[in-house]
């Protein structure tokens, strides 16, 4: 599974962090970071993260 976040679109809401904390995090300046190739076992959480992104900036590939 591959995760792509459009960081131009991302506005650092952080909703994805709660849906999939193993994959997404906000640093102390509030900027998003993420694991681009998370384990397949996290698929449900990652899809949930993509759903709850207010900017729809998260894409799940494969």
């Amino acid at each position, binding site marked *: 599974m591959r995760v792509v976040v459009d960081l131009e679109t991302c506005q650092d809401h952080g909703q994805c962090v709660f849906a999939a904390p193993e994959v997404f995090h906000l640093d102390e300046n509030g900027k998003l970071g993420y694991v681009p190739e998370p384990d397949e076992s996290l698929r449900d959480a990652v899809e949930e993260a993509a759903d709850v992104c207010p*900017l729809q900036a998260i894409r799940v590939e494969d």
Partner: protein
Amino acid sequence: MPARIVVVGASLGGLRAAEQLRAAGWTAEIVVVGAEPHMPYNRPPLSKEVLAGTALAGSVMLRQRPSVADAVWLLGSPASTVDLDARAVTLADGTTLDFDGLVVATGLRPRRLTDDGHVLRTLDDAIRLHTALTARPGTRLVVVGAGFVGCEVAATARRLGADVAVVDPLPLPMVGPLGEQLAAALLTRHEERGARFHLGRTVTRFERHQVVLDDGTVLPADVVVEAVGSRPNTEWLNGNGLDLSDGVLCDEHLRVEGLPFAVAVGDVARFPNARYDSTPRRVEHWSIPGDTAKHAARTLVASLTGAAVDQPAFAPLPTFWSDQYGQRLQAIGAPQLGTDDIRILEGDLHGDVIVGYHRDSRLVGVVGLGRARATAATARYRMVLSETGKRIATDAGSRLGHHTRLGQ
């Protein structure tokens, strides 16, 4: 007839419902009915990037899961009636659809004060308002209503160079959900950027190119925006004996008055939140369509396939946000339950600030205002809020109800 679920409403709630029906195991037909001609799109950018003209209309279309590629979309014709006994819905263009299961996702429409003012709910509304605001430099805008939509329109219009006046009968903008301190800080940020507020005032008359207030003030107005709340789209459900007094009354699993074959999602649904109490309320936050769709789809698929409803009562953790002048207001939990005991947790009201709302000395809601750093700091309180939610809730009813109406 093959098994069919009809989803009435093709916005975020309708799309998420279709996706979640598939995720819950529904493999038969899904038909989604939409009043607007557009495929589902994301509404938060309408009052910001789309209104500002920095985002193209196409960029707000919602991405769909591959699982709903075979759903049938009937767009541009709203449902006009439904017969729940016969399980058939009729559209305005005369099409009749039989169904096994029904998802009510028809959302809201803006409350209107005049026939010719602007409102902001749909993509077409946003494009029309952008055109009106940019027709010539220094357009004079009057915004009626200082809630979420009114404040965001005011902020975006200032960035477009419009001359902006905001009118509201309450003493501060967004004071219902935020309480006085933070609402006052928000007012200051607006005024520093040149928006003028006429608070504690109501509109007496709309006249050609001007608006007259109850104290006699005359505001020049090339453009008027009405941002005075919404009404649920439930007329098509009339005649079935349902309680439609404020949206569609649902049980704790989002079934329409307990019916096994009908659920409701999004801001048209009036449901109890088990995190707080048993009082059903409508909630107009962006997160609600997704939350309700997931729960309602599981309920409906279980019911239609003869399985037990095997999930706890619906209990979402509320969140909402608003972006104004490049600053973000981020709320988690239920701040409106704790406006009698407000404390600054971090920062100060003139800069980035995190405010805590307490009930019986317990933190029930947190709101951050400021730059991205404030959003991240606010998010750190989410865990504690999600744990305290259940314990505070017994007597919170009327005030939460008050908020969900104001917090539009």
